């Protein structure tokens, strides 16, 4: 008799429904935004220190990698915000059915896409 206990828990064998992908992205974007906050606070602090500090921010943000990071941060922040508003609307009792939840999830994604393009145009 094998005393070891097993569970069927292998994420590669589970089909994730669309609404769960919306939810996972919400969580991941939240973690990502949270992790980038110290970096932004550092830049903010430098920008407020003196005119030399402010000038050096321009140099930092001129670097493509930091500019892409800033873009990713704002896109993640936008998605986290739009998906959060979706939950607030559902908490008010609207769109709690599966069909509406799928539609509102897709709307949050589309708005994020537009937001990402707009931020991209603004940054470059």
């Amino acid at each position, binding site marked *: 008799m*094998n*005393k070891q206990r*097993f569970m069927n828990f292998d994420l590669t064998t*589970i089909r994730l*429904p669309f*609404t769960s992908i919306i939810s996972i992205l919400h969580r991941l974007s939240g973690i990502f935004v949270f992790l980038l906050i110290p970096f932004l606070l550092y830049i903010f602090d430098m920008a407020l220190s003196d005119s030399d500090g402010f000038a050096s921010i321009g140099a930092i943000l001129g670097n493509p990698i930091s500019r892409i990071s800033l873009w990713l941060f704002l896109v993640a922040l936008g998605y986290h915000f739009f998906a959060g508003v979706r*939950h607030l609307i559902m908490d008010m009792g609207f769109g709690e*059915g599966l069909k509406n939840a799928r539609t509102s999830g897709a709307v949050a994604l589309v708005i994020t896409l537009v937001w990402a393009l707009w931020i991209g145009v603004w940054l470059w």
Partner: protein
Amino acid sequence: MRFSIYRYNPETDAKPYMKDYEVDVPHDSDMMVLQALMLIKDQDETLSFRASCREGVCGSDGMNINGLNRLACLTPVSSLKAPITIRPLVNMTVIRDLVVDFTLFFQQYEKVQPYLQNHAEPPATERLQSPEERAALDGLYECILCACCTSFCPSSWWNPEKFIGPAGLLWAARFLADTRDTATEERLANLQDPFSVYRCRTIMNCTVVCPKNLNPAAAIAGIRHKMVEKGS
């Protein structure tokens, strides 16, 4: 048609493995997955699974079919892409093959006190409800406790013991909605901690997989609304 089935016998196997079987499924057949499993059991009698009513009423044959939890008796083979992969319900201890341990699931069910509570003197006949009051139970009372939802809920994966899970909470909502039940305040107070209800993130996996087309996510939102109304 090829079926790939999760096998594990604790008496002989060191660990679970997948085993392939071939079943002749005639073109345009209306065979359900449960029938296919019975044909496979004719080939290999060591295969274990639970089934009883064969028509989606008893809730015995919940399993993970091609990645989604469903009832084998209500899932037509023709609706699935081959090879058909059948695994036990997700995140539940496997007893043997597709048979899983429901102990924790029923403990969660028990926590919500799934029975009518009313300490008032019973009337001579029955406790009456208006048709509207009765209609408030629709979409809540039909649950057959197959565990497809709770076993597919990421919040239950994270907190299987502290979060009650969609099935138990659907039953909590069913008795909260019942005008004959007088324990509403106590029921809400029992669910007040940060885990029992509030681990639900409205991911809606429960609603996607429910074989009775119920919406546990909306029922849980209903419980939260009642908590706000009661100011608790």
